Structure formats: C-alpha cells, structure tokens
C-alpha cells in the first residue's frame, strides 16, 4: 500500500516552498525534514514544551500539533526568519545572546518565536508580563532567570530599532 500524498505550498520566512506530504505529516516534521529548516526543534510532540513553536500569520503555534497540510496558505515564520534583513541578529536573538538566555539552545527557537510575537503585541512588558509571555515554554538549562531578562531587553532593542526608523 502506498501512502497518499498531497501537494502543498508552504510560505516560510517569506519563501514559497512546494512539498508532497502525507496528510498526517506534522508541520514540525515538514519544516525539519521536507524543507530542511532544522532550527525548529521537537521536544515533546505533545504540545507542552513549546520548543517547536513557530509563528503562523504572526501568532505562536506549536508546529507539532499542526499538520503540514493545514499550514498551506498561511505565512509561517521560523527561527531562521528572525534575523534582520541585513543578516544581523534580530532583537530577540540579540537579547538572548547578551543576557545569556540560552545554554544548550534546544528550547531556544521556541522561546525566540514566542517572544517575537509577544513583544509585537506588548512592546514594553513589565517583568511580570515578561514572565507571562514565556510561561508556556519549558527550558531545562537556564532556570528562566536570564530568559525573563532577555524578554525585557529584546523589547528595549526592538523599541530602539523602531525609533531609529
């Protein structure tokens, strides 16, 4: 028996990709294995850890809880799409580096995408709001102390960049 596949177009980080995937293929697997975008990591495959979070039309979504076929027609942003157009680190990436917000780096892409959406919605979060913003993502290395700092710093960098424009 041959598994039926579906031809889909996925728009990821502004680039159109074509793929033939079975209906059951998770978006996380399609990104990683069909498109080679391995920056999105899979930590639990049951939607709890948040490592696989990507932005779907700007909203954070767990790519392990979504089928690739249902992502067709939506704008997807992965960690690979968070750098500035000139290739420099984006605000959240830069803040994580400055604040030592990562150790092993496995959960990091999910935090980066989540915070990118978070500070777009709330550009000047308080520390409590920063905590709320990342309260759905698991990290086993950092104890979150520097991640919370990085949220506030990322918002600051983003505001400065906005002001420069």
């Amino acid at each position, binding site marked *: 028996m041959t*598994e039926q596949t579906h031809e889909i177009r996925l728009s990821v980080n502004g680039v159109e990709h074509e793929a033939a995937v079975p209906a059951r293929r998770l978006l996380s697997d399609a990104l990683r294995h069909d498109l080679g975008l391995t*920056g999105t990591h899979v*930590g639990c495959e*049951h939607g*709890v850890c948040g490592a696989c979070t990507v932005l779907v039309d700007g909203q954070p979504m767990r790519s392990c809880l979504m089928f690739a076929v249902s992502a067709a027609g939506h704008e997807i942003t992965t960690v690979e799409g968070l750098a500035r157009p000139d290739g420099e680190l984006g605000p959240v990436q830069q803040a994580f*580096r400055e604040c030592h917000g990562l150790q092993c780096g496995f959960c990091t892409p999910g935090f980066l995408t989540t915070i990118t959406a978070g500070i777009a919605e709330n550009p000047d979060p308080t520390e409590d709001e920063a905590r709320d913003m990342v309260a759905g993502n698991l990290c086993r290395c950092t*104890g979150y*102390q*520097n991640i919370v700092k990085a949220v506030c710093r990322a918002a600051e960098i983003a505001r400065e960049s906005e002001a420069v424009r």
Partner: protein
Amino acid sequence: MTTKMMGAKVQRVEDDRLVRGTGRYVDDVAPDALHAAVLRSPHAHARIVSIDVDAVLDVEGVHAVWTHEDLEGAMAEPLPLLIPHPTLTHGRTQYALAKDEVNHVGEAIAFVVADDRYVAEDALARIVVEYELLPAVVGIEAARTATHLVHDDVPGNVAARMEQSNGDAAAAIAAAPHTLSLDLKIERSACMPMEGRGTVARWDPDQNRLQVWTSTQTSTGVRAAVAAKLGLDLGQVDVITPDVGGGFGVKIVHPWPEELLVPLAAQRLGRAVKFTEDRREHFISSAHERAQMHHVEVGFDDEGRVLGLDVRFWHDHGAYTPYGLIVPIITSTQLLGPYKPGAYHVQFDSLYTNTVIVTPYRGAGRPQGCFVMERTMDAIAAELGKDRADVRAVNFIQPDEFPYDQGLIFQDGRELKYDSGDYPAMLAKIKELVDWDHFEDFRAAKAAEGKRVGLGLACYVEGTGVGPYEGAHVHIETSGKVKVATGLTSQGQGHQTAFAQIVADELGVRFEDVEITTGDTRRMPYAVGTFASRAAVMSGSAIHLAAKRTKEKALRIAADALEADVDDLEIVDGVVSVKGTDSSIPLGTVAVLSNPLRYAFDEASKAATQFNVGDPTKPPVAEDDEPGLEGKDFYSPPRSTFASGMHAVIVETDVETAEIRILKYAVVHDCGHLINPMIVEGQIHGGVAQGVGGALYERMAYDESGQLLNASFMDFLMPYVTEVPASIEIDHLETPSPLNPLGIKGAGEAGVIPGSAAFAAAIEDAERLPITAMPISPSELFALRATHAPHAQESK
C-alpha cells in the same frame, strides 16, 4: 595589552548559531537517512513467549526488522556493565534487544528501519508479541520485602551491599549524651533534557569506515563500545558529538541499545540510519534517579557536635546496573558535606525493581546525601533548641584543616580528601544574603498578616573534576588562527567560550581567533566524558597545559627568527615581539617556520622566507622536534577537587491550601577561580530550577504493576518560569584548588544538590511539623497537617 579573559563575563560564541537556528543537533544531520523505531515492552515484568514480525514485511518502505534472534556475536550478548565494583556481586545488564524476558516497561524488544519514522511506527504496530506476565517489583519497599524477584538469580533483589566506616560510629553513638534516629525518603525524578537521545550512523564502503553522530556525554566511550560490539577496529569508527540539547547525566550512559543498533543497521543496509527518541520513550527507556530510603542514627553533644553517625540506606537502581554503584557510593560519601563527624558508618543496599534504570542525574546521589545530612542537622538543632546555623557551624571542617581526609573512598576509587574550602566564611555570607538573623522579625510580621513563612538552609560539598584524565590539542595555523580540540563533549555548558578564554590568556592571542572543538574522536581520540562537574577542571586544565606547550614552541622558534632571547619575548594579540622594540613576528608566520616545507602556497609562506630558523648543520626537523606549531598535553589529577555551597530559601505555605510559594532564594557558591562568571551563574540558575522541581513537583508515578502513569510533559511537572524563584541571589567565594594549574573546581551540578534539603527545612520551619520525605506537594502537606493537627494548631 590584551585584556585578561579568565574571570570575564564573555558572551558565548555558541550563541550566534544557536539563536539563528543553524546549530546542528543529531536529528539535524543526514537528512537522507532512514529512520529507526523501537518496539518497547508494555509490561514491567514478563517472559517473551514468541515474537511474530511477518506482518511487518508487507509494509512498504520498511527496510529491516530485527529481534534478538537477528543479532550475532557480541551484539547478541548483554550490554556492558560499564563500572564494575567488587561489592556489585549481582550486576545485570540488558540486551540490545530483549532476550526471553523484559524487566521494565519500555525495554527494547524489536527494531525497525523504514523510510521515515511514521512508516517505522506503522510497522511496529504490526509486530505481535506473546508475553507470559510475571509479578512486578515496584518501589523500594517491594524490592526489600522481596516477595517477588526481578531477576531469578538475584536473591533478595540485592545487587550490592556496601559498607564504609571511619571510626567506631556505633560506640560513639552509644556513648553520646544525646541521640536521635530519623527515617527519610526521596522519590524518583529524571534528567529530562529537552532533546532526548538520538543517534545517526553512516557506513562508508569506500573507506570501510563507520561514522556515528550521537547525542552523548562521551564520544570516546561510544566509539569504543560500538567498535567492540560491531567487531570493528577502533580506527574504523569515528564518533562525533554535535550540538547536544542538554544531558544532565542521562547521556553519559552508553552504549544505549540504539547506539549500537543504528550503526549496525547503517553497516548492514549501506544507508545512513537515524534514531530520534520521542518524549514518551525518554520517560520509559532512558534513565531516572534519586529514589532512596534512609535510616539515620546520630549521637551528639550539648553543642550539637556530631560524635557518631550511622546511616543505613536502600537505593532503587531499577531493572539493570549498567552504571554500577556510582550513585549510591556518592550518596554514602558526599553525605558528609562540610562536616566532620567523630565517627561515621554507612551501609547501603542497591536494589532491583521492575522500573527504568537509575544512573546519575545532575547531583548524582548528592541531593539525597545532602537531604539526609541536613535533615539530621536540623533535627539536632530542634532537639537541643539551638539555632540551626550554629549547629552546622560547630560541625564544620575549619579552613586550617585542609587538606581534610574524611577517611573514606570516593566514587573514583580515590581518597575522599577535601582540597580546600572555607565553610565558616560561606555560612557568614549566606546568613547575610538571606538576612538570617532578622528572620524572626520577618516571620512575626507575616504572621500578623495571617501568613505562615519558613526559612531553610542546606550546605553541601561536591567532589568535582574526577579523573582519570582529559587531553587537549592546540594547533596554530599559518593564518594565526588557533584550533583547539578536547575530547569531552558539550551539552550547553559553553565550553567553546570558556576554553577559548583559557587559550587566549595563555597564548596571548585574540579570543576571536580561537576555535574549540569538543567531542569529535577524529580530533582527539583520548578522552573520558562530560559528567561529575569535570569539564572545566579536566579539559580546562588540559587545554591550559597544551596551550603552554604550544607557546613554548612558538617562543623558541620566534627567538630564533628574531635573533633574540626567549625571555625577552612576549605575545600580544597573536604577535610575538621583543619587548620594548619594533622587532616582531606574527604567530601565523611562526607557524610557517615551524614546518620546513618545500613549497610556498600563500602569502604567509612567502612572508616567512625573510626569516632564517634552524641549525643548517642539523636535519630540517631536529631529532627532538616535530613539524608544525602544535602542542598536546593531558591533565590527570591525583584526586577530585571539592567545591562547596550553601543555599537558603524562604517559603510561604498557604494556610488554607498548603501551596508552597518561594519568597526568596539565596546561593553562596565556591568553585574556586571562575573562568566565566556569567556561565557559572547560568549553571547555578539551572541547577536551582531543577532543585525546585525535585523538591516540589517532579516524581515518577509508577503504579503497582510497573506502569509509569505520568510519562509525558503533561503529567510530569517540570518547572516553568512560573514555578521558579523570581530571582536568585548569588554570592561567590573563591578558594582555589591546589590540584590544578588554574585553581578551578567544577560548577555544573552544584545548583541542584541542596534543593530538597533546603525546601524541606523551610517547610518544616513554617509548619512546625517534621518533613521526612521529598518531593512534597500541596496535597501531601495538607495531609501532613491533618496527621500533626496539634502542632499545626500551635503554630497558628
């Protein structure tokens, strides 16, 4: 002059690739690989009557399906018992694929290789296994009772009984003015790195070589195991550890069944093969830790000085003993912490249960030992009505008593001899950090608001940097770039940064010009691994020594080229110069001169022609020399170096709901000289969070049949940001180690060690009822209140 890098908060070089999503974890390599999946036992204890794989062969896209019958030679034998011990009289290990019997839910039974993981799992569902169920032994009580046996040939479920003493503890206790006994208990938790286990292998028929990428804490260990099991020469196997998504101990275990089956499949199928563990598999087929029960007898004087301490404990090591007795040996020795009891006796039984194997998890038996000792200190203070910090202080080893020999043998087979420390100074710091002396005022103020708070303190000593050795190779290229390799692996500790700091300082080169490679057996085939808070001490020291050798050679050649005396030279920003003159030569040019080539390839080699080095009457490469600007060295210490720390926590226990809130968390830590304080503090933060998890949330909920009921992140409660302290106050003490050239001690595990001890003390202090078992949930605390109602009333 280049700024000194050692001790600076240098940002990590790893981060750029990791925040861009361009890191390379094991599941990211070999996109063309076939995928493996493993059929795992659904039963905790059963005999395998038959396995029928016929239906799998109809599944399109399946390339192989194996059971134990398909394995040959060494692959068909049990997996190695990595660390034997004379007292481990009944060690048992599993097979790569189960033979005749399974001993825990999750044990590997069959192995399928298919086009992708989806198809491989479809195939697993078609394998039919007939089991004859056997009674499961779950938990320490059942193992001790031994009504049923895990292994028929292991009486009493006892794999090992080990005993150590220093002095006559029983006599000291009998003669002591005061005595107490305590019964204590700690439950299972687990490392839970965000990335599970994973292995990729590719067989190269042109070179007759195997290349293995694996998410491990020891590349060299896996290499030796794969070669031995597959019958290959060591020289045919390369093991590369790419970026690793956390380890915390579980990935030091090797070889996992999949670490052998994947390379074997790659060799047999002539295709790259990949296994990536999913989260449920990580819960039921990797490793856990922590579960122990303890009985303590202690005798002490009027000041609370421990005269005799006798500890008997029972350690649940799960279904097999691949990692020997390391965890309980550490518990039994590191239990002593910063204290010097008059006499000590310890005895433990390491017991089989039909549950996942137990191997080191960050702290590796120390959290339990610390819990036992600190609960004992608190009990003594309560009995005598003394301040808990004062009772600890009278028991401390004093700064002028180092090196201090505890009179025991440590996990590495060496003396348990502490090299340095200053526990009284540390206690003073932690008391100040948590405002110990004014806590009663705080308690009273909170009580006036109807709130109940408590303060806990826990002290520990951690043997770090265990041997036997690590090595390093430093190579200065003709570009002036410095390429450094050390064999141990990295799983988030920032080794590429910290080690480059050491090299930059020693060689006098720019930090940016140093590139560190870890865990690649092609670059450094002699190494041990990353565990026991040993990487900074062991590889840091080896790298320092190798850089020193390289520098000596560079100076020797430069002195020749510049016609100067070695003592008059200095290296700054990668340029060797005669101090106070314009005479100089870049290290890259020195590298060209170090290698008497016949051919000029580039500008660097052309530039080098202006210099004359070497004695024209001797061969171009002198008898005592080698070509190339390289240095290699190994560091092998006489014994471990002992870091220490103290944590204090203030909690509020909700008067109505028994919820436990963390109001303040303070840490004083001594790991000798700091290489990168930012990285050390990050390690402490992470350790504290795992300590919170172990104390308040995490446990493995096995039912009586051996099913793990909470094998997912939905049900196993790992702390989110909402569960950890809002801030962690950290102060450092730096008592350098005399055992290594940099004076450093390990820092990786420290943060987690005193967690359960400190929280138990704080909750006990708030509630005025004894806390003897951890972790503790609100409902357990609520139940405890009911059973200790009179005390609870008093404290209101």
